């Protein structure tokens, strides 16, 4: 994520073990990853307008993405998580789906 000048790219963290074809009713997490292009103000705005997060919560999530490289921004049934990931891709954010432990 970046300010108007850009910032760190913290790719990686592939330690998850997504099991394919297992119980689809298990809750899923929506993860947003840091990237050096998306603006901090834009990311915070997306979290507020799409998820309806409060100003404070959206800001915290945005900072977590920026500092820690990733943040879980939502969780729920697989179908909802899939919709969220696709919507975030529509906004140009790097988002993935992850099965909850």
């Amino acid at each position, binding site marked *: 994520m970046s300010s108007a000048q850009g*910032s*760190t790219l913290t790719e990686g963290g592939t330690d998850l073990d997504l099991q394919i074809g297992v119980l689809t009713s298990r809750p899923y997490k929506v993860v947003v990853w840091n990237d*050096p292009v998306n603006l901090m103000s834009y990311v915070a705005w997306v979290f507020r307008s799409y998820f309806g997060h409060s100003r404070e919560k959206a800001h915290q999530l945005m900072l977590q993405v920026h500092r820690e490289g990733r943040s879980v921004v939502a969780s729920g049934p697989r179908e909802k998580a899939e919709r969220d990931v696709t919507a975030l891709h529509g906004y140009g954010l790097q988002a993935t*789906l992850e099965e909850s432990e």
Partner: protein
Amino acid sequence: MARAFRATTRGYRADMESHERRLLSHLCADVITMLEARGEALNDAATEPQDSFAHFRRELAGLGADLDAGDEIPGVEPPEDAALALLLPDASTDPVEAAQFRRLSEASLRETKIADLRAARMALESEPVTLTEEQAPVFGRALNDVRLTLAARLNIDDEAAAERVHDMAGRGKAATTDEFMAELYTFTTWLQETLFSAMLDVMPEDE
């Protein structure tokens, strides 16, 4: 020189020179062309004749035990082009899961992006550029897609690279393609920043 986006009583407004609007519209058109080409390439691959014989060939080869795995509908591979990979990201860190998800979702994601970019081109037809509350996020998404594309072309993959591009743009007269792209990147970044700052300002406080 353009004046930044700001909130007005009738939405958001930015004053841009006609060459700036033309340039931005042209960039949107380039991204549309890339997305359309990706769709066509996938369609061509899906209709290649040898695919329909794959199952038959496996059976002939006596791979009966593997038929279950072979019957699995193949996923769609991520784009090789760096810009397209940013525009159409993997939905999972697991490549197989990502390919399956892509098969179901990439086409509609491409359509959404193309629609956003077309709407942005429409908005860029008039001076000043005026966006309603409904149009502003669409325009913002399109601007972001243009930024992602330029970032990939400029190899912005970390903070240091982003700063290099920022410095390159600050030098004034662009002599090379990279310097020109750096200026475009900085310009679209600035436009997007001012638009979303204005949008955040008027967003109702939390209930």
